[in-house]
C-alpha cells in the first residue's frame, strides 16, 4: 500500500497540478461524507470536539502566553504600567555581551555540528545499504546512543576528556602535549563529538528509509548504462534524498539548539566561555526574572528559526524540483 502511494506521488505530473488534484479530491471527500448545510455544521462541531483538547492546551500553554511574551518584549520593565518602547528591548539585548557570546557560540556550534551530522549520517546509511554482513546489528548499535540518557554517559565523557583523562594519556603517550579539553577552544569539539554520538543513529535511520524509497529501476538502469557509483550517488541518490536531507537538517538544527543539556551536565551552569550557549543565557535570565530580555530573546530565536527553516525549504525545493516534476 505504502509503496504504491509513493510511486504515484513520484510519477505525478507536477507539484502545482498535483496540488489542484488533491484539493479537488478533498472537496469530493467532504461532499461525499456530508450532505446538507445542517449536517455540515454538525460535522464541523464534531471535528472541533476532537480537536479541542489538544488545541485548547496548545492555546493555553503556547499561543496565549506567547502574546504576553510579545507584550513583554515591546514594553518597559521599570515602569509600573507597561509603556510601549518599541524595539528598545531588542536593541538592549543585541548590545548585551553575554547574549552576543551565547548567540555566537550557539550559531558556530550549529554551523559545525549540523553539516557534519548530515554528511556522516549519509555516509553511514550508504555503507549499511551496501550489502555488508551484520547489517541489522550495526543499525541497532548505531541507534543505541539515542536511547541512553545523556546524564548517564557524562561520567565517561569526563573520564575521556578531562585534563587527566584518557585522551590526554593517549596524546602524551604518542609524544603530544596534553590539552585541557573542556576549558579551551577544543571544548566545542568535545561537545560536537557528544552531539554526533547521540544523533547520528537517528539521522542514519532516516536516510536509510530515504534510500529505500529510491525506485530500484532507476538504479538498475544507471548500472546498465555503466554509471559509476559516484555518479549514481550525485545524480540519483542525492536527488531523491533531498527531502530527507531537508528534514534531517531541520532536526539536527533543533537538536543543536538543545546542546545545552550536554554542556550543562558536562560543565555545569558556568562552563568555559566557548560553551556558553543560549540556554545558559536564558537560564540566567530566568534566575534574575528579567522578562523583558527573556521575551526579546525568545522572539529573536523564533524568528531566526522560522527564517532558517523557510530558507531550507526554498533550497530543497530548488534542488529537488526535477525529481518531483
Amino acid at each position, binding site marked *: 500500500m505504502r509503496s504504491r502511494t509513493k510511486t504515484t506521488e513520484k510519477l505525478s505530473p507536477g507539484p502545482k497540478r498535483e496540488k489542484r488534484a488533491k484539493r479537488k479530491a478533498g472537496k469530493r471527500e467532504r461532499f461525499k461524507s456530508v450532505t446538507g448545510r445542517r449536517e455540515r455544521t454538525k460535522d464541523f462541531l464534531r471535528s472541533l470536539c476532537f480537536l479541542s483538547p*489538544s488545541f485548547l492546551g496548545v492555546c493555553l500553554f503556547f499561543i496565549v502566553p506567547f502574546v504576553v511574551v510579545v507584550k513583554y518584549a515591546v514594553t518597559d520593565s521599570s515602569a509600573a504600567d507597561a509603556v510601549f518602547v518599541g524595539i528598545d528591548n531588542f536593541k538592549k539585548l543585541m548590545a548585551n555581551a553575554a547574549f552576543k557570546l551565547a548567540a555566537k557560540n550557539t550559531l558556530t556550534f550549529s554551523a559545525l555540528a549540523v553539516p557534519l551530522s548530515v554528511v556522516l549520517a549519509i555516509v553511514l546509511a550508504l555503507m549499511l545499504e551496501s550489502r555488508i554482513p551484520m547489517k541489522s546489528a550495526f543499525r541497532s548499535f548505531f*541507534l543505541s546512543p539515542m536511547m541512553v540518557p545523556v546524564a548517564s554517559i557524562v561520567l565517561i565523557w569526563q573520564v575521556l576528556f578531562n585534563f587527566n583523562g584518557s585522551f590526554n594519556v593517549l596524546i602524551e603517550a604518542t609524544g603530544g602535549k596534553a590539552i585541557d579539553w573542556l*576549558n579551551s577552544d577544543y571544548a566545542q569539539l568535545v561537545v560536537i563529538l557528544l552531539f554526533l554520538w547521540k544523533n547520528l543513529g*537517528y539521522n542514519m*535511520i532516516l536516510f536509510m528509509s530515504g534510500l529505500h524509497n529510491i525506485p530500484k529501476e532507476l538504479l538498475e538502469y544507471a548500472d546498465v548504462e555503466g554509471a559509476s557509483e559516484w555518479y549514481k550517488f550525485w545524480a540519483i541518490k542525492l536527488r531523491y534524498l533531498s527531502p530527507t536531507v531537508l528534514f534531517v537538517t531541520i532536526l539536527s538544527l533543533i537538536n543543536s539548539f*538543545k546542546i545545552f543539556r550536554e554542556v550543562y551536565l558536562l560543565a555545569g551552569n558556568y562552563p568555559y566561555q566557548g560553551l556558553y550557549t543560549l540556554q545558559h543565557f536564558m537560564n540566567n535570565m530566568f534566575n534574575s526574572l528579567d522578562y523583558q530580555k527573556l521575551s526579546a530573546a*525568545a522572539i529573536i530565536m523564533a524568528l531566526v528559526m522560522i527564517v532558517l527553516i523557510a530558507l531550507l525549504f526554498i533550497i530543497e525545493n530548488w534542488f529537488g524540483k526535477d525529481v518531483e516534476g
Partner: protein
Amino acid sequence: MKKKRIRKKQKYFSRGVMFLICAIFAVLFLAPTVLTITNSFMTESEINSNYGMVFSTTTGGYVSEHVNLKFIPDKVTFSQYITGLVRSPEYLMKFWNSVILTVPIVFLQVAVASVAAYSFTRWRGKIRSGIFFFYVILMLMPYQVTLVPNYLVAERLGILNTRWSIILPGMFAPFSVFLLTKYMRRIPYALIEAAKIDGCGEWQTFTKICLPQCRAALCSIAILVFIDYWNMVEQPLVLLNDAEMQPLSVYLSTINSGEIGLAFAMATVYMFPSLLIFLAGENYLMEGITHSGSIKG
C-alpha cells in the same frame, strides 16, 4: 571472464573495508554505554584508583597519575547498587521523580494527540490545515522559545515549582500530533466510510477503526516521547526550583567526587528503563523514526 573475476574481487574488497569501518564506528558508539555499565560493577576503591584523578583534582592542577580506562572490573560487586538503591533513598526518590514526570506525559500526550490526529485526518478544511501548519511550526521551535511562554503560564496558574508545570505543557506538545496525523492519513478512507455506513458514530470510528489500525504508531510515538522526557534537563531546571523534585537526569550531574562509583551505578540504573524499551520496541522505534521522515508529506 577474467575482468569479471577482478571486479568481483574488488567488490568483496570494498565490502570488507566498509565492514571494517562500520565495525570501528560500532565500537565507538557502544563503548561509552558499555563502559558505564561495566564500571558500575567495580568496587569503590577500584573506581577511585582508576578515575580518582579526574574527579578530585581541579583542572590545571599538578598531575601525578593518569586515569586508567578499564572495561572489565577486577572484582564484580553489587555494592554500589546496594548503597544507591537501599541505603540512601535519595537516589530512589530522584528516580521516582523522573518516573512520575515522564510516565504521565507519555500517556497523556499520546491520548490527547491521538484524538487531535483523528480530527486532522477525518476533516480537512482550510482552517484545520492552517492549524496543522501551526502545529508543525510549533514543533520545530527550540526550548529557548517555548520555555518562556510555559514559564509565564505556570506562574500565572500558580503551578510553578510543581510537577504540573512540566506535565501540562508536555501533555500538549505538538510533536506526537504531527506524527500520528501522518500515520492516520495512511488509513484508507474507505474504511472510515464503511464504518460510517455501518452506523458507527465518530467516537466509535475513532476507537474501533482508527486506533487499532495505528497501534504500532502509538507504540513508536510513546517510545519517542518517553526518551525525550526521560532525558529532560531544561524544563526541570527552569520550572522546578526545588532540588527535591529534580529528576535523576539533573541530579546525576551534582554528585560529588567522593561518590563516583555510586554515580556510575546510578547512571546505569537510569539508562536501564530506556535501554529495556529499546530492546523491546526497537522495531517500533525504527518505524516511528522512518515515518517522521518528511515534514512535507
